[in-house]
């Protein structure tokens, strides 16, 4: 029996030394190709006697399998080395900056408006809207401001030049005109589909929107945002108003305790009337709610004046209810600590980045408001 061990060790050595895939292929062809050395040995089996074949067959087949395996191993090793070399050359400097995506922001006043809507929607309020340019009737007369009454002067109203009919339009000084639009049933349709139309009680609406007064300092801007609330039913009293405001304040500020003060006031459109203050600290250029000894007024409210109910065609002996008006910017200032309300309207990108909110900070009861 011929000894193939020399051939095997030669081939094994050649395979191990093959520098690349081409050299390896040449070795394979020389050993296992049609006229390769091992192929020749396999062919020689045919001319052997059965006895010879019995011992030489397994030896030659074994040699072929081991060489083939060695070739495959070496091929894998060469490919892996090649990949390693390529990947090493493909190195990226990951300390280089990725082009940042623009980071947008929601304006804090609008965030606060959404927060307020979320809380009141949960209490069964729906949203009503009305125009910014109003007439005297909706802004004043229907709200029980007698013509030429000094209470009108307190509103520092912006007026337009009189029209051909002598009527002087104005910028609404509060969101209360929408109360009238909601309560007054008329035959005419609302002037636009988004403007509130009259509805039957019970009524439970909030009215967010822009309002305007001729005033400008750190706590007043000529344009600001209000949120009106209106609840009309048969047996709604001031205790319900107090609960509604208290509940709202606790949920809005997301603080375990906010000290509030409910005190009498006067508004032409409510009787009795009230204002609520929250305790806060405004020293040091920041507003901190729940601290300090100052009182900041946050809402004017009261029971809807019987004259308004009558004006809107509701019998005050049958229907009664309350209305309130929050300053949205002011609430935002108290919750999020902006010192100067005028900055809210200055569009300074540094301010917007600092006080703005993520698009994903949608107020919801599970995650909190902001």
């Amino acid at each position: 029996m011929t000894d193939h061990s020399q051939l095997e060790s030669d081939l094994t050595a050649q395979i191990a030394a093959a520098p690349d895939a081409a050299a390896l292929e040449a070795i394979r062809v020389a050993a296992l190709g049609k006229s390769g050395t091992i192929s020749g040995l396999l062919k020689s089996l045919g001319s052997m006697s059965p006895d010879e074949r019995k011992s030489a067959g397994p030896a030659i087949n074994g040699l072929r399998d081991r060489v083939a395996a060695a070739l495959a191993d070496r091929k894998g090793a060469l490919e892996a080395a090649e990949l390693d070399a390529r990947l090493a050359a493909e190195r990226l400097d990951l300390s280089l900056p990725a082009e940042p995506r623009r980071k947008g922001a929601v304006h804090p006043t609008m965030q606060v408006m959404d927060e307020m809507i979320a809380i009141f929607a949960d209490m069964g309020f729906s949203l009503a809207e009305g125009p910014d340019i109003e007439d005297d009737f909706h802004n004043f007369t229907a709200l029980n401001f007698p013509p030429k009454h000094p209470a009108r002067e307190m509103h520092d109203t912006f007026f337009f030049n009189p029209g051909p009919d002598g009527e002087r339009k104005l910028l609404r000084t509060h969101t209360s005109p929408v109360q009238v639009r909601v309560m007054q049933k008329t035959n005419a349709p609302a002037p636009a589909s988004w403007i509130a139309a009259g509805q039957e009680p019970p009524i439970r609406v909030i009215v967010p929107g822009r309002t305007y007064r001729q005033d400008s300092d750190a706590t007043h801007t000529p344009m600001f945002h209000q949120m009106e609330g209106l609840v009309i039913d048969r047996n709604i009293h001031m205790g319900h108003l107090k609960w509604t405001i208290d509940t709202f304040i606790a949920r809005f500020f997301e603080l375990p305790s906010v000290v509030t003060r409910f005190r009498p006031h006067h508004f032409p459109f409510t009787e009795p009337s009230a204002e609520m203050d929250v305790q806060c600290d405004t020293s040091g250029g920041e507003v901190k709610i729940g601290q300090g000894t100052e009182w900041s007024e946050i809402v004017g409210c009261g029971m809807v004046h019987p004259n308004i109910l009558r004006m809107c065609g509701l019998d005050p002996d049958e229907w009664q209810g309350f209305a309130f008006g929050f300053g949205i910017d002011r609430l935002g200032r108290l919750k999020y600590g902006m010192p100067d309300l005028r900055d809210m309207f200055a569009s300074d990108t540094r301010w917007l980045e600092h006080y703005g909110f993520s698009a994903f900070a949608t107020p919801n009861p599970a995650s909190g408001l902001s």
Partner: protein
Amino acid sequence: MKFTLSWLKEHLQTDATTAQVVDAMTMAGLEVEHVEDPAAKLAAFSVAKIVEAVQHPNADRLRVCQVDTAQGRLEIVCGAPNARAGLTTVFAPIGTYIPGSGITLEPRPVRGVVSNGMLCSAAELELADDSDGILELDGALAVGTPAAQALGLEAVIDFEVTPNRPDWLGVAGIARDLAAAGLGTLKDPSVAPVKGEFPNPITIRLDGSDACPAFSGRLIRGVKNGPSPAWLQQRLKAVGLRPINALVDVTNLLSYDRARPLHVYDARKLTGGFVEARLGREGETVEALDGKSYAATPEICVIADGSGAIGLGGVMGGESTGCSDDTVDVFVESAWFDPIRTAQAGRTLTIVSDAQYRFARGVDPEFVVPGLELATRLILELCGGEPSEVTLAGELPGRRPAFDFDPAYVKKLSGLDVGEAKVWSILEALGFERSGSKVQAPSWRRDVEGKADLVEEVARIEGYGALPADPLPYLPTPAGGVLTVRQNRIRVARRALAAAGYEETICWSFTARATAQLFGGGDDRLVLSNPIAADLDCMRPSGLPGLIEAVGRNAKRGFPDCALYEIGPVFAGDEPGDQRTAVTAVLAPHAPRRWDKGPAEGLYTLKAALYALLDELGAPTANLQVAQGQASPWWHPGRSARLQLGPKAVLAEFGEIHPATLKALDVDGPVYAFELWLEAIPEPKKKAVKTKPALTLSPFMPLSRDFAFVVDRATAAGDVVRAVQSADRVLIAGVRVFDVYEGPGVPEGKKSVAVEAQIQPREKTLTDAEIEALSAKIIAAAAKSAGAALRG
């Protein structure tokens, strides 16, 4: 309205401190704005006595004093000429801040002698504008007495008087409410008449108009006018009034004490033996007490005598008949002027006087004559003289009618459980009169018109702190939420744009008229007659100018890279239906250069955000026409378009802002922007259920084919895309432009547009022949609709 605690105590028997008064006022509805407390401001100052004063060794005008002070005997250098032994004055120790001179005392030698504090003048305590020397106080005052106490200075309470409560413009009215609130006992406010000694020689005439329905007056003969006594001067000064002379001071005192404005005339300066309240006449003028001349138009009530108009009724008296120290005979007026007319007169004349303020809010008609009697008493007391009988011309306005009131209504409207007896006792304490089931409001409460007002009276005196907090009755919220489609779209737009990298801002609804005109607005009907500033005088027609100007302001601050948006109203007219909600965004990219040479942001970045937003809002983006060159003139004509469903259904405009527009707003470009009108987006049909249509997934592999078309340069690529898409709406699932080329190989005036059509077999795999047929259809459609030829 200002007053002091001691003044309040003239009308209210109470031991309450200033703090207690302030608290009770706040909780009764009198909103205290400010308490000015001199005791706090002058806390460091106290009474001291000079024991010895000798000439300073090194200065002629200085003295070295030995002074007994709260800190014992100290050596103090003083430059005042009146510094002398035995003088009782005010001392400030080292470390004190001197308000009048703005310095803080330090232990510094004065010409070689150390001064251990300072002796103070009235000016240094801000009690007078200037002083000749240090204060000279009553020698009986003990050393160490706080200066505020020694000087009789008191806390001054300043509060807001709501327009419904003119009675709070008098200290007596405040006392009445505080007494009802349990802070003390009201002293009897009644006034006994003073008997007239002779008939009033001065006739009072009225013109019968509404201007002055009632006018009372009397002459006081032989008075001796002059400075009023110290107590009266101090009372007036404490609330910021300037003492004039005794006669005038009495009128000012009663204005604040009883909310009763009065006027005194020097009777010898009156002409014709009469005074008349009437409407002004064209061309008439009044020389008023403030030294100015006012036109007395026919809307304004004047007081006239034989010489013509001599005063502005209820607003301000006239110079010609004013009282001086020489006045001997005085005519005292106590009248009732119409509130509305007086309010208008104040506005027209731009005068806000204490009298005008009170008459405009409505003074107590039933105190017209008692007010005159009280003034008479004070004048007789201070100036002597002999009073005539009282004349009352005209008729005093009556009270409002009594109305039915059931005490149970307090509980129904307020929720407060106040017993019936308590309800009545509160109302009585406030002056309401009960007869059977009816209630009559007092004459000074002209604001009370019905039972709801009485509930407020009871509730505020009982205290709002006692109100229950009752949960609102359960009201089922509508299934599907409370927001309308449009309201929800506003929320979605806000979040979508913030997520796309834009920062939300809020701009004024008004802008400069010239700016509004740049954006198609500026209509007369939208111009404010009283703007807050000249450049904010017109309602905006668009959200663009505000955002573009914001870009400019940020750039000027050194931050030119902006992506801003706003959701807010824009105005096409002054009718409610003319208001629309605009979603406006601007992109002014000035990002730093990039190391990876990636593409810069531009108009197509903004277009992507706009289309993503429209998709979020449920707009039919696939059907939108891009009407290029049809956008408004403030856009770059070649780089702007309208997005519309048809010529009358314009959803948005977008593009680059016209350089001329930017220049007019002083902003550097380029600025890319869009404005979309929320109400223009069609609302989806309401569906009964929210189920989505069933999804069918094709088992067949999609394939794609590329086509390079040559078209006219002016042909929109969108037209090529639409043409290709239209070749087979079933099989062609999408068309994308992947190259646009002009240059060698493409004829002059033409461009190549390369598109990839995605083909989705629907029922079976397509054969080569079928694909060929589809390609031929695509080429034919592109040729027909877009004039496109396949590139050879």
